[in-house]
């Protein structure tokens, strides 16, 4: 007690900033986020760094984007980090969110067996999906209302095809597991590039369609609205959102995975508008 007081006094005298461990009322920040963020390994890295650089600790639950937004819409989390822009806008309109900031993007890739029985290689994504449906080649869908699942269903909608039948399989599992199933079944699936790069060495599927503008995958952080949910840790949520868009974190995101996979898994976008990324 006395020591703390003396320390405080010294700090006041030399006008120094207290160390990063300065205490806050509620150090625990509850984050609801997506499995691709956890499966890529970036969540663990950012979580440890956030704890080191701020007085807060992150408690993250990795579910799908749909579930993460639902948790946020009940006020059961302080902040959400997701990738489904249309659903996010609906979430904001319902008054569940406070701040919504663009953090980073990567892109989706259509992957499939090297033999490519549906002949989709090099096509644009809509033509590729039409070719898969026409040839009834097996397509594995996440089927778990995750951001990837929502994204995939939107792509199908834009092709005008309602995928159904024995060739369209809903795996209801995370991205890593879905890629394993796709490889085992010699099927096609839509994956985020990050998870694909992480799993690449262990599976026998290849990227067949990529770098097509409709395949950009954008991640936003949204703080849960404290006026609607007074119990949330608003200070902690803001600290995490500010942390994600800070210059150092953006550099960390840009370099994540480069050493291991030869290319970055995510591209930092803080400060840009959605239109810039598309």
């Amino acid at each position, binding site marked *: 007690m006395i020591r703390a007081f003396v320390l405080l006094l010294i700090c006041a005298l030399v006008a120094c900033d207290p160390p990063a461990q300065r205490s806050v009322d509620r150090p625990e920040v509850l984050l609801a986020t997506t499995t691709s963020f956890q499966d890529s390994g970036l969540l663990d890295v950012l*979580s*440890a760094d956030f704890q080191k650089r701020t007085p807060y600790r992150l*408690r*993250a*639950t990795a579910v799908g984007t749909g579930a993460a937004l639902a948790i946020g819409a009940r006020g059961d989390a302080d902040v959400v980090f997701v990738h489904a822009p249309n659903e996010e806008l609906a979430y904001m309109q319902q008054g569940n969110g406070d701040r919504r900031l663009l953090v980073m993007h990567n892109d989706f890739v259509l992957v499939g067996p090297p033999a490519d029985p549906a002949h989709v290689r090099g096509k644009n994504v809509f033509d590729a999906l039409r070719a898969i449906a026409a040839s009834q080649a097996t397509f594995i869908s996440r089927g778990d209302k995750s951001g990837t699942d929502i994204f995939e269903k939107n792509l199908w909608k834009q092709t005008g095809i309602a995928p159904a039948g024995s060739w369209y399989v809903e795996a209801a599992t995370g991205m890593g597991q879905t890629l394993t199933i796709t490889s085992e079944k010699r099927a096609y699936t839509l994956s985020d590039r990050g998870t694909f790069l992480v799993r690449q060495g262990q599976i026998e599927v290849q990227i067949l369609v990529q770098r097509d503008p409709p395949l950009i995958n954008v991640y936003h952080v949204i703080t849960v609205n404290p006026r609607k949910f007074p119990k949330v840790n608003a200070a902690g949520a803001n600290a995490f959102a500010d942390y994600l868009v800070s210059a150092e974190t953006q550099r960390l995101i840009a370099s994540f995975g480069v050493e291991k996979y030869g290319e970055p898994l995510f591209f930092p976008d803080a400060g840009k508008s959605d239109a810039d990324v598309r």
Partner: protein
Amino acid sequence: MDLILQGLGEAASRLVSLDPDVREATSAALAVSGIATALSVATGVPAGAWLGLSRFRGRKLLLSLVNTGMGLPPVVVGLFVAVLVWRSGPFGGLDWYCTRQAMVAAQYLLAAPTVVGLTAIAIQAIDPMLHLQLSALGATRIQMLGILVREARLPILTAAMAGFGAVISEIGASLMVGCNIKGDTRILTTAIALDTSKGEFGSAFALAFILLLLVFAVNAVTTWAQQRRRPL
């Protein structure tokens, strides 16, 4: 096949070097399941002894409820505990979602019925003559309970081990309420599932080996207890 050999090789090196991730997951699993089992023994043994000794209307119903509890699906317990400890839930004030406390609570609910049920059976299996003799010697109810529990200590040890064995290898409830946070609520089972989906089979194998070792140790203790000649 390469994948399996490579995984086993990496597992061995991680075990030998006591990899920090493996160490953290092991100590978290032991802490959570150890506390949950200790709590279920502390409450379950007296409750089981009482259930085994007393005679009252509805006892059979209660016993069959306890026996049902032995087979509680972990995901169902996980769902209930999650709904209870979410901020919007009745125990939201505790702020337990994604903490070890919530995991202990869930695992307690899974282990306690096993401890209660097996203790009740163990107490009932004691020769009824001992009962009679104890009361003839003027033992109070509490003293009687103490002596009978001591008498049945090996089957009760089996009960505790069965409870521990169930929760240490459980994943559904722990994942749902603990959130699998690295260095905190990431235990052996949830780490194995995550490493598998990340494709890190070496680490998954290493963790799986430790888990198997723990389950083996539990069963070895149980077998030893069962095969030892009962004390007079």
